């Protein structure tokens, strides 16, 4: 094991795949000499050259559409969107091109591309740079959607995403970039579609993603002191979703709380709630609760942003109300 940051783990995943497969390349804004807005691509341009680590103009539509075309013709692009908040600029390319190409062509076209992009608030970046828009892509058939919460998951999932023959939206959380964790020395991948039980417990199930896995684990630590044992499930890949693991846990605990940073209405959290209420209703002993951000744009002031974001305390309150 080695100790890496989430950002370093992501960089390692890209470097290893680029070394193995010459058709893998990176493109995005300031991914070259600048090293990426959050430093994720770092020195890759020095290692792999400007042809394979391509600085683009400010041109998200062409970046994502270009990745689709490159993926259809024998390359494996890793496109970076500097912020997930900018996905609207390239949404047609995500939705009508990347996601549908295989289906529309009756299975002819293969679109092995990864779209890496950071979500999340907590750094005062305000309304247009802080969104968690997982729900936009979770509902789009043809995409896979990933959001890792630890360096080890980040690396293993990104390698799987790069090797996958389908378009993968790979969300990263800004605040996690500098967090550290143990990462295996050897070559490994983590399959898309397999949830990870980050902590076992019998009293209630928390399904949490990204930053909120950390907050859920904090909540679990605190509740453990009161004798309440949370089971914390990190789906890791939102699509495909590991329903089995989630439903089995809810069946065991009888309680489901979904904690994500998204605004609540129309969220991935809503989807998980819908799945449980459809396929696991008889397991439930209490309402399914969503602990999510307020249904507002992300405010700038630190005070407001903290009021906007759910806290560990909010998770604890939700758990207690459901017991």
């Amino acid at each position, binding site marked *: 094991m080695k100790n890496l940051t989430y950002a370093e783990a992501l960089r390692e995943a890209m470097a290893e795949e680029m070394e193995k497969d*010459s*058709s893998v*390349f990176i*493109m995005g804004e300031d991914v070259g000499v600048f090293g990426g807005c959050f430093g994720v691509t770092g020195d890759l341009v020095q290692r792999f050259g400007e*042809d*394979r680590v*391509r600085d*683009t*103009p400010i*041109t998200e*539509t*062409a970046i*994502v*559409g*270009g*990745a*689709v*075309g*490159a*993926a*259809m*013709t*024998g*390359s494996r*692009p890793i496109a970076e969107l500097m912020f997930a908040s900018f996905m609207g600029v390239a949404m*047609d*390319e995500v939705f*009508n*091109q990347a996601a549908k*190409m*295989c*289906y*529309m*062509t*009756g*299975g*002819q*076209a*293969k*679109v*092995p591309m990864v779209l890496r992009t950071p979500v999340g608030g907590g750094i005062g970046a305000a309304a247009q740079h802080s969104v968690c828009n997982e729900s936009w892509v979770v509902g789009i*058939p*043809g995409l*896979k959607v990933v959001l890792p919460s630890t360096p080890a998951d980040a690396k293993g999932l990104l390698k799987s995403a790069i090797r996958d*023959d*389908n378009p993968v939206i790979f969300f990263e959380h800004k605040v996690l970039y500098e967090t550290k964790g143990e990462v295996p020395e050897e070559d490994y991948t983590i399959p898309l579609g397999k949830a990870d039980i980050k902590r076992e417990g019998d009293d209630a199930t928390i399904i949490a993603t990204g930053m909120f896995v950390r907050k859920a684990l904090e909540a679990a630590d605190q509740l453990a002191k009161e004798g309440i044992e949370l089971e914390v499930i990190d789906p890791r890949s939102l699509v495909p979703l590991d329903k089995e693991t989630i439903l089995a846990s809810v069946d065991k605990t009888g309680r489901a709380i979904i904690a994500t940073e998204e605004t609540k209405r129309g969220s991935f959290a809503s989807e998980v709630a819908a799945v449980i209420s459809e396929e696991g209703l008889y397991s439930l002993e209490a309402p399914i609760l969503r602990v999510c951000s307020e249904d507002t744009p992300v405010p700038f002031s630190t005070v407001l942003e903290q009021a906007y974001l759910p806290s560990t305390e909010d998770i604890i309150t939700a758990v207690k109300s459901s017991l």
Partner: protein
Amino acid sequence: MKENKEELLEMLEKMLEIREFESSVQQYFAEGQIPGFVHLYLGEEAIAVGACSALKEDDYITSTHRGHGHLLAKGGDVKKMMAEIFGKVTGYNRGKGGSMHIADVSLGILGANGIVGAGLPIAAGSGISSQINGTDAVTVCFFGDGASNRGTFHETLNMASVWNLPIVFVCENNMYGISMPQYQSDGRKGQNIKDVADRAVGYGISGITIDGNDVLAVNEAVNEAVKKARSNGGPSLIECKTYRWRGHFEGDPTNYRDDEELEEWKKKDPIKKFSSFLLDEEIITEKEFKQIKDKIKEKVEEATKFAQESAEPSPDDVTNNVYFEEVE
């Protein structure tokens, strides 16, 4: 330019094939045998054929909602195309795509596209692949005058230019985007310039405007641009002036244009122009011409029959192909 008879005849055949194909689609759509929307290429045949005749099999094209002509010109199979338009399981896309989404990835046909202007970034992508994978494949990117007002046009031409991508941008200026004139001095217009090719200046690439109803002119211009792209000379923009004979889609009342305008353009029929040339120059005889036409008619009839007689997809197929599966 194509010089030898064989090549010239091939172009003529393709143009006739498109004409015949589209006329059949028109007919069967009117009869209710074809669902959805169809956008016909009648009157514009010279562009697809002139351009694709400049390409090798492993070159790429991206197409549009008005894509039948491009696909046939790049070598698309008439039967599989017709079957797809009829929504049959024997179609290129197993009936999942229809007229607006036909593709033959193995022939470098990266698909018709229902989103105006969406083919441009995809063409950037195949251009990038040529660089990443070190091939000499060139991409011809077809799009309309209307599409040239979309942001994708701008972003793609810019990207192609700064990265020197091997792409030939072929703008089919058929004077309208649905009801919107590309240009007119007074009144509604899609853009305030007469020639779309003027936009090339903004990207530092070459841009020319040619007669899109002259297959030899198109072929010559695209040929040169392809050569340049293949030898690392970067992208070009070629605007081909033409006219669509039919409404925007079948069913369009065309209340936004005059019949006289259409009649004027029908006089410039690209097939008549080319066949007259071939006959005048005695490259073909009237008899040969008729033989070709008959052969093509038969070919398209067979394709139609094939489409009509093919099976519908099974309802169970609806959930296949959402994700890619390697077929052995």
